[in-house]
């Protein structure tokens, strides 16, 4: 067991963390599967509006790799295939009616243990749960033809207000164990499971994994950071990663013989009186989960956390990889001499506001950019929030000038946008590090 105490990083003190209380979703009227949740995916549709589907029906496939299936998390009627700019398919909305489910074969633990690698792969592809496995570099759905060096699972919850892994698993340790057994067929390397002091107890008895303990501020819980510290990606290597919740979902599929779509979410954010956990469906409608109404003009509903989540709405849906909803106040308008304020309640990494004297005080920042974009000026601070041997500014500059060789040398294969999200947060020049990294990753993929 490796113990990693990370010093670099930053925990933004935010109001609205979820208390450990699990409720049932008030209703389930609609769900959606969103192709835009999967980076660089082009969907090949198998259904159209008006079709009747069961839980587990195939909705679409990956056009480039048609073996990768996407199945419906609920039974009902397809209300709409929503298209965005240039007719890109954004989401398939299903009005939930009943709960009829497609049947699959179910397996015992012994059977799973005797699977061959190709059997395991075939079952996972057919289950519709292959997209739960992602790869680095490029942080996208794993390439099933590749043999990953190792598989990483992070049960360290460090992102702002992040849901706690053991709450999301809701006692499904047996399913989790079975999921691990299946995943172990897919790599000749190790399965690395990272835990924190909080989640250690839940995962202590899991077999077939290499256990690591991570502590420290965000992004210590990011799988990219953990890969960097446990077993770095070298040129030409690939690693896969899965979230703990998805591992147990795979386990549920194996024992249950149905597509398991029940999912626990954390409802968080300063706009909620009290955060809590709620059990609903995969791809749930936000207004189905919450027992209060949200106002889209005064409140920002985010699928995911405040750093890396996607802007949603009260009538929006939760993303495939997201297991939390964060609701924060929208920006209030222009503030008079905002840059001169004393800042008793100013959220800041920098010791330039009075709030620095009350570091424990939880704040409720709005979606204000708090400034305008400028050229790179500040140096030396970004490194403080990146617990990796990566030079964030130099990497970003290499991406901006499209110097492929330099990008490679400075570690583009190791990072995802989420790993540098705190750089964007603390940046006085308001530079979007995440967008730049994303651009770099896309460039590398094209050069491939």
């Amino acid at each position, binding site marked *: 067991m490796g113990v990693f105490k990370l010093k670099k990083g930053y925990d933004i003190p935010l109001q609205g963390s979820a208390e450990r209380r699990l409720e049932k979703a008030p209703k389930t009227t609609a769900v959606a599967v969103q192709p835009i949740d999967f980076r660089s995916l082009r969907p090949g549709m198998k259904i159209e509006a008006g079709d009747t589907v069961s839980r587990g029906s195939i909705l679409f496939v990956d056009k480039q790799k048609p073996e990768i299936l996407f199945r419906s998390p609920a039974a009902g009627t397809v209300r709409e295939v929503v298209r965005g700019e240039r007719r890109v398919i954004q989401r398939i909305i299903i009005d939930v009616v009943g709960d009829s489910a497609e049947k699959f074969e179910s397996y015992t633990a012994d059977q799973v243990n005797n699977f061959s690698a190709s059997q395991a792969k075939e079952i996972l592809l057919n289950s519709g749960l292959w997209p739960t496995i992602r790869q680095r570099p490029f942080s996208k759905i794993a390439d099933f033809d590749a043999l990953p060096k190792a598989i990483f699972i992070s049960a360290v919850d460090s992102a702002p207000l992040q849901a706690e892994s053991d709450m999301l698993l809701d006692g499904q340790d047996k399913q989790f164990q079975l999921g691990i057994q299946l995943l172990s067929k897919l790599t000749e390397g190790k399965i690395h499971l990272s835990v924190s002091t909080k989640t250690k107890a839940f995962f202590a008895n899991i077999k077939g994994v290499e256990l690591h303990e991570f502590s420290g501020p965000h992004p210590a819980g990011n799988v990219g950071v953990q890969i960097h510290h446990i077993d*770095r990606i070298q040129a030409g290597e690939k690693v896969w990663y899965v979230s703990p919740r998805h591992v147990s979902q795979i386990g549920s599929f194996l024992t249950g013989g149905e597509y398991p779509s029940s999912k626990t979410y954390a409802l968080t954010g300063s706009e909620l009186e009290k955060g809590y956990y709620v059990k609903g469906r995969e791809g749930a409608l936000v207004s189905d989960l919450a027992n209060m109404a949200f106002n889209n003009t005064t409140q920002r509903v985010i699928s995911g956390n405040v750093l890396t989540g996607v802007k949603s709405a009260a009538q929006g849906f939760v993303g495939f990889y997201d297991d939390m909803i964060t609701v924060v106040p929208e920006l209030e308008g222009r503030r008079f001499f905002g840059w001169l304020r004393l800042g008793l309640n100013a959220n800041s990494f920098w010791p330039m506001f009075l709030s620095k004297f009350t570091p424990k005080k939880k704040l409720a920042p709005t979606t204000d950019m708090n400034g*305008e974009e400028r*050229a790179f000026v*500040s140096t*030396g601070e970004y490194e403080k929030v990146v617990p990796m*041997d990566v030079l964030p500014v130099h990497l970003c500059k290499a991406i901006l000038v499209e110097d492929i060789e330099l990008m490679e040398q400075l*570690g583009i294969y190791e990072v995802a946008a989420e790993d540098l999200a705190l750089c964007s947060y603390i940046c006085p020049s308001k530079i979007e590090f995440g967008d730049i990294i994303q651009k770099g990753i896309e460039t590398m993929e094209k050069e491939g």
Partner: protein
Amino acid sequence: MKSLLLFLANLDVKIKEGPFKIVHPMFGAINSMLFTPGHGTTTGPHIRDSIDMKRFMGIVIFALVPSILVGSYNVGAQAGVEGLFAAFMFGFLKLLPIIVVTYAVGLGWEMIFGHINGHDIHEGFLVTGILLPLTLPPTIPLWQVAVAVSFGTVIGKEVFGGTGMNLLNPALTARAFLFFTYPGNISGDSVWVALDGFTGATPLAAAASSTGPAVETLNAAGFTLSNMFFGFNPGSIGETSTIAILIGAVILLITGVASWRIMLATLIGAYGMALIVQFFGADVAGGMRTLPAHYHLVMGGFMFGAVFMTTDPVSAAGTNIGKWIYGILIGVMAILIRVFNPAYPEGMMLAILFGNVFSPLIDHFVVQANIKRRLNYGK
């Protein structure tokens, strides 16, 4: 407040589309200074730090206030004005026109380039516009200030692409321009005291020309260590008072605006080099080499440069290891120039510009080391 916001919004449109488009960068800067821009996030991170460039640069200006106050007083005191307030006002009225000219000319250029490049005036100039006047003697002709600012802004910054892209510190570029084109107005013994026909050598000049041990010459001229620490001697307006500069340094370091690595490295480099020079200077009778090492730290522009100029994040090295090398290099160079350059007793300005030129190279080697380390991982 609401009507003011509405007025600004209307004016913004009118200026942008009217015949006076060219002042829009200026208007934009004032507009966003009065009220926060009010832009919301569209992608993650959905919330952002409260810091922006205005706060960042505002703190540098705040940190310069002690130097402005003590410096102004000293200009009056050197000119023989009696009374605390009277001396301050005398000096301040010398400093103010220099600042006004610097801002007027500099912002004019910024406006033109902002118009060409389609952006608002950036906050960086607000700092440059205070830094430059503080490095000048109180007797500097204002037209020279105007020419120097033009050079510093256009050649020092805008030709590289504006704030953030410049190689050299614009304020020091402007000062170096004056130093090489009009040396008579920025060096020698007759420019430091704001009284016609009055000459007063700076402590550095006194030490350099001493024939006996430098400390004795300094003490005889009234330049004791404490006198120089508090800053009551002839020199550039903002550079004389070490204590005022150090108060600024504390502000910069507490707020994290300036790099402690650079400041400390510059001090270490200078002090170390001065010790070496002092050690090997035991055989000479007088001059700079007889000066004890710690004297260097309170004399001339060293401390002002170390606190406010070396730490300019744009022209300094950007990597953490690079900052150590950069700072030490500047400190060492400053002392070498002071001691071994016979023409001019001050070396800080040229040392910093020298460091600026080398900082991309220093960073290059630090980045190469990172690349090498990454390649060797696991081997």
